């Protein structure tokens, strides 16, 4: 397997203000002719390490598309995505997958937990895929922070939505990824629970120096972010720190 250039998080000398994500002229078109949809139409974006970035925009503006590009779940029609030193377009599908499980944590709106695994197994699932030993101490820290201690042996369908989302967060954090990508993580939750989840995300990002990119419709949540990127019609229309 070809070697992969991993962004070296711990490398001394590099400042925290480095751009961990660098997107240039990113375009994603669906269909063609009359039915052509420009989901992304020339996006340039840099995201700094350790920052909490929110992406906002109306429905259908291309937020999810952008996030999927960042996570290497989809390939762009044009342009490039660079995470750390790695140009994603250069990776084969297989390499992209391995890159993803080592470097990127996903949090989905509908959680996407594995129903046949317990909470604990779900959390360590990406680590097991990598055949690594889970850092038990670190993960228990996350678990305690998220208040999941008593639920570790439960199965996902025995949890509430908020609990499931917390498991998804724990799963995303467990691999110590370079970047966490969250697509409307609170979309299914009531405002109090979402507040809880968001503040947990903030706290964990600060505590573990995590870079987080999150899509949200909620202006209040966006207000918590270090930076808000506004997308309309596949273009960045506003970018406020």
């Amino acid at each position: 397997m070809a070697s992969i250039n991993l962004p070296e998080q711990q490398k001394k000398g590099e400042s925290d203000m480095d751009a961990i994500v660098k997107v240039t002229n990113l375009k994603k078109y669906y269909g063609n002719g009359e039915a052509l949809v420009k989901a992304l139409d020339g996006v340039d974006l840099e995201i700094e390490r350790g920052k909490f970035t929110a992406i906002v925009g109306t429905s259908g503006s291309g937020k999810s598309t952008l996030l999927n590009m960042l996570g290497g779940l989809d390939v762009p029609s044009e342009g490039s995505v660079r995470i750390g030193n790695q140009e994603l377009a250069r990776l084969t599908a297989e390499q992209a997958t391995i890159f993803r499980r080592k470097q990127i944590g996903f949090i989905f709106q509908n959680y996407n937990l594995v129903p046949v695994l317990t909470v604990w197994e779900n959390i360590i699932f990406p680590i097991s895929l990598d055949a690594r030993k889970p850092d038990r101490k670190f993960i228990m820290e996350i678990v305690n922070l998220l208040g999941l201690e008593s639920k570790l042996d439960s199965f996902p369908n025995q949890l509430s939505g908020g609990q499931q989302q917390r498991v998804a967060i724990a799963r995303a954090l467990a691999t110590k990824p370079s970047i966490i990508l969250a697509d409307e993580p609170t979309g299914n939750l009531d405002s109090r629970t979402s507040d809880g989840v968001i503040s947990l995300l903030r706290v964990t990002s600060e505590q573990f120096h995590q870079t987080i990119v999150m899509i949200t419709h909620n202006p209040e949540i966006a207000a918590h972010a270090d930076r808000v990127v506004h997308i309309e019609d596949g273009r960045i229309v506003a970018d406020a720190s």
Partner: protein
Amino acid sequence: MLANNNLKICHRLMWREFRFHKGCSILLVTALTLVSMLCTFSFAIGFMVRSGLKYSYQIQYGSTSHILYYGLNSVQAASVARHADVKETVRLKVLGLLSDDMLGYRNVKLAVADDGWAAATEAVPVSGRMPEADDEIAMDELTLQSLAIPRKEGAKVQLRWTPVDGGEERVDTFYLCGWWKSPMGYTETCAWVTPNAAGRLCPDAPDYLDLGVTLYRPRNLDRQAQEILREQGADKVPYTTNLAYNRARRQRMNEKAFPFYLMNIAVVVCGILMVYNIVRISTVQNARFYGRVKSLGMSPRQIGRFIVVQAAYLCLPAIPAGWLSGFVLYMVTAPYVLLGTGGEHPAFLFLNPAPFACSALLTWFTAFTACLLPARLVSGSRPAEAMKYTGLSAAIPAEDRSGAKKRRCRVPFMALYGIRRDKKKAVFAAASMCLSMTLLCGFWTQYISTDEEKYMREIAYCDYLIADASTANSLQRYNPASHSVTPELIEEIAGQKAVTAIGTVRTMEIPMYADEAGRAPIVESFEGENEEGVVRKAYMSGSPDWVSGYEKFRTTGEYIGIASGIDGLAESVILSEGEYVEGVYDAERFAAGNYVIAAGASETSFVSTPPIGSSVEIGGRQFKIMAAVSYKGHIITGADSREAAFNVSYYMPVQVFEELFPECGIRNVLVNIDHNSQKEFEEFLSKKIRDTGIAVKMRSDYQWEFGNALFHNYVIPIFVGAVLFLIGILNFANALVTGVLIRKKEMAVYESLGMTQLQLRRLLVGEGLMYGGMMTAFLVPAVSLMTWLWTGWWAVYSASAWCVTWKYSLLPMWIALPVLLVLVMVIPLGCLHMIRKESVTQRLQIVE
């Protein structure tokens, strides 16, 4: 309003489901087509076997009418025809009987042309037509052959015949206008002339006719025939009833057809299992589907309609396709199953709409049941539960919880969860597989266990059995005056180098009498019960001639004895190698000529002959019975007279027989040859017997018959078993395919979390192997045991046990299992390849 149910929406929903799951729908229709095909096929074959047997009984009887009354006057005939139970009647005005010696024992009646009667006895001219002019006549081919009349319209026919009213034998001249050939005319047929000709030939013929009666509901024909007569006040009229409606024979017909009908049960069960599995796609998805539509307010009635519509859509293409393919299959196999239909294709001869109707019904039933099941599954649960249904919720076994405590990741064991989730499906797949595999292994074991050696030993006593011309057909009565087999011919055959043994059989029917003591053992053996507790006499209820002969014997002691002179090979086959129930065979004393060997129906402890040591008078000479041997009917061809249906055979040396009956010919010749020169001998023999009417049954004929019986009995069931197995495999494959396809999203989640393709593959192959392993662990012992029990029982107790050497074999399973194991690995991988064509993001967006 509560009753306001929009049923149209059901159709739309159905149609969308159909289109969205196109592959699944095609699979479903294919499955139902298979069911429809197999049902059509096995019903059609069953019906054909039944009709074929019925037809052969009718041939034996000579008519399709239920009852034949003889010698009614026209007033009586008219009133019988008006009887409430009588559906239709056909009439025959007989002028006389043809009395040419060349006709032997065949009964050919000179009669007034009657289309109805002709149709009922298959005596309708196929070439030419019925007579129209006064000097025209229509006859059957067999009679034409016997009388050496060319088959040509206008050929001159000179007939010798005797009027029924007892007049002098006379000779008249006609011209041939039509002829036919029909197996129904072997024993009795007509020669047709016009009514005018009848008036000219017998100007003062009495009012005297035969009446064939067809009833609305034939049940106990004898009783019905008598009732009809009693109501006319004419119970002295002689009548006969059709053998095909005899109770015992009807039972035999049903018994023959039954296995074919039985196969349908297996077909339907496997079919339901398969369709069910496909329809359900998965417990999870369907429960969610029904949960969702229920929560949206679909009423039970709408759901019911939905299911009916679903089944109807599926059956619409499946049933006709099944009919067609089933019929083709039936057409191809029919000639092997039913023999001797005289050139006509048996598939068309006995074509009947019933199999198609039955098949349509069963296919519909299969589709409906299978569509209903998934809906029933969630019918009890509330929509909320149904929607959340993951197939896991109900019971997570305790051991899993404890396992989870250890907090190891069990990704390699995730495979197990996949199976547990589809437990029911796995059970169904295993059940249908087990059923079809048992059928296959069972019939296969039966096939290889049927022993040709044993069969030949029981059936064929010699390499060649030469039959007198009058006995070429098994329904033809032997004519001792036929002399077609001459002593010269026998000498010539014996002179062949290839011949290693030769022997002859001569027979003569003679009226005999037995006193009380002579009758006793015979009556005792027939009135007694056999091992199964059935009175032996009951076995013979299928042949009324036997019953009346036996009753006459029991009450008066009068019966027909068949004196039989045997020598050479026949002597050694019948006597030296015979099974003696009583007495011992002493060849020297037998040759001296004062003893006979009696032969009758026998069982281990009984033989139906007069007692050993008693005297019988044959041809005016006294003989002592030396021993009782069991009767070997296969050596003697043709039929005896109807009066001799109940008889006792007495064997004596040929020299003695010839002294008693010097005018009697040779009925059969048995020949054994050196098998190396089989070809030359057969050439010689066929040249010798050409144009003599002599028939030869060869060893190879017996072998062919054996192969055919084997084919009939086992190849078709094996074929059906194979198709069922195919259904089982499809079922299984389908379970595997859907097992992966419904987890499209799950796979996408895994991928998004960083599971590589290799890991995905390993997961699926692991699942597959585990599935296959569990299947094997269940199938091998289950199929072995079931096959063992079934065939073990069959080898000892079945009707064909006499030609069986049990060879237990599970070969079909050993062939099938590797196929299974390959499938469980290949199919999931193929599916994975398919679903990976869709991007991860697309799959993640799937709404469940």
